[in-house]
């Protein structure tokens, strides 16, 4: 009987259809990638994105509701978040556009959360009042979640900085090699040209000498 009850609870938890997805994907140059999510009416959704590498770290972002109307739009943005409440049930679309950039592909982090965070599965919806222990454990849980979010944020920032630093490192290397080669080449060419100058005059000089 007990297992049946537990299973029922699990089903309930699954049925609520709560989606929280965070992922990072590679947006090719000149491309547009769309993601879809079905959201029920009156449930709140939280949408966040951040470009962590590529070009000027910018991307076009559009959020559309089931009727195809744009509810949120940003052009050439690096980072933003948007919270909204679904006005109708249906498929919401989030599109990332990189059409303006012909060469650089972008790495984009997306966090899309729909609905409230589910209660602990296996713990049924409470009819009774929470004890003090439970309330504080819930508070701690919220706090830790915030810490995890902050860490993710820092991680992305760090990734931005690191990619730039690695680029710089590479560029310093390539440019200094090129410059050294250029200096040596110019030095040699200068001598050759000068020599040619004076060697060319030689026949005329010989001519004058004879006169």
């Amino acid at each position, binding site marked *: 009987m007990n297992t049946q009850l537990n*299973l029922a609870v699990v089903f309930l938890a699954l049925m609520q259809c709560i989606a929280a997805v965070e992922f990072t994907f590679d947006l090719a140059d000149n491309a547009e990638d769309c993601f879809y999510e079905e959201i029920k009416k009156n449930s709140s959704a939280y949408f966040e994105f951040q470009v962590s590498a590529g070009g000027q770290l910018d991307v076009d972002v559009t959020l559309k509701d089931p009727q195809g109307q744009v509810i949120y739009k940003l052009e050439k943005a690096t980072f933003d978040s948007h919270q909204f409440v679904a006005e109708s049930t249906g498929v919401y679309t989030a599109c990332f556009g990189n059409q303006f950039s012909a060469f650089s592909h972008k790495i984009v982090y997306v966090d899309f959360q729909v609905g409230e965070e589910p209660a602990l599965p296996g713990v049924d919806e409470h009819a009774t009042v929470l004890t003090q222990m*439970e309330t504080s*454990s819930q508070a701690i849980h919220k706090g830790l979640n915030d810490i995890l979010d902050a860490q993710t944020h820092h991680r992305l920032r760090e990734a931005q900085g690191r990619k730039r630093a690695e680029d710089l490192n590479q560029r310093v290397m390539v440019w200094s090699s090129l410059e050294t080669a250029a200096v040596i080449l110019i030095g040699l060419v200068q001598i050759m040209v000068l020599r040619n100058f004076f060697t060319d005059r030689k026949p005329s000089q010989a001519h004058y000498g004879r006169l």
Partner: protein
Amino acid sequence: MRDQFISLTLLLCALHSACGLYFHISETERKCFIEEVPDETTVIVNYKVELYDPRSNGFMPSSPGIGMHVEVRDSDDKIVLSRVYSSQGRISFTSHTPGEHVICMYSNSTAWFSGAQLRVHLDIQVGEHAIDYANVAQKEKLTELQLRIRQLLDQVEQITKEQNYQRYREERFRHTSESTNSRVLWWSLAQTVVLVCMGFWQMRHLKSFFEAKKLV
């Protein structure tokens, strides 16, 4: 009774994976996702593929013919996992090195040209989100409070892992910066030496050349 339960579970699982984020790819397309995770962290990927059906102008809920090739590479570009799964699957792996793990999916379709459209439902859970507490509670017979504390412990553990990873990344960043610094330093020194040598050699060469030509 038990069979009923199992079938119900399966049905609800299917329902569950049907909600959530989805996107479209063509049959020959390859889609990759990057997850940056600390070491010893579990990542669970749930997916479900539906094939576009031109007759009903919709997506077939189950497409038995379609298989998905899933490939996971770690930060050293080593293959962690590479297998063909059916149209619906649950992949779980644990990272052994910290860093960016790339999860790539493509269908095993043999179409030469980009054929039909595929709709892929995807759900990625990392770290303590990947833990199924309902299961834990059942297995270990925990009370509600114990389960909550257990969740807190898992979270703290995840934070510790993340912090260790942060330290590792900071080290790597510093290494890159120091490398850039020393490169700038050494190259500018080398450049100066090259310039001075070049100038010296040019003067000497020209002098001897002019003397040989009796121009000076």
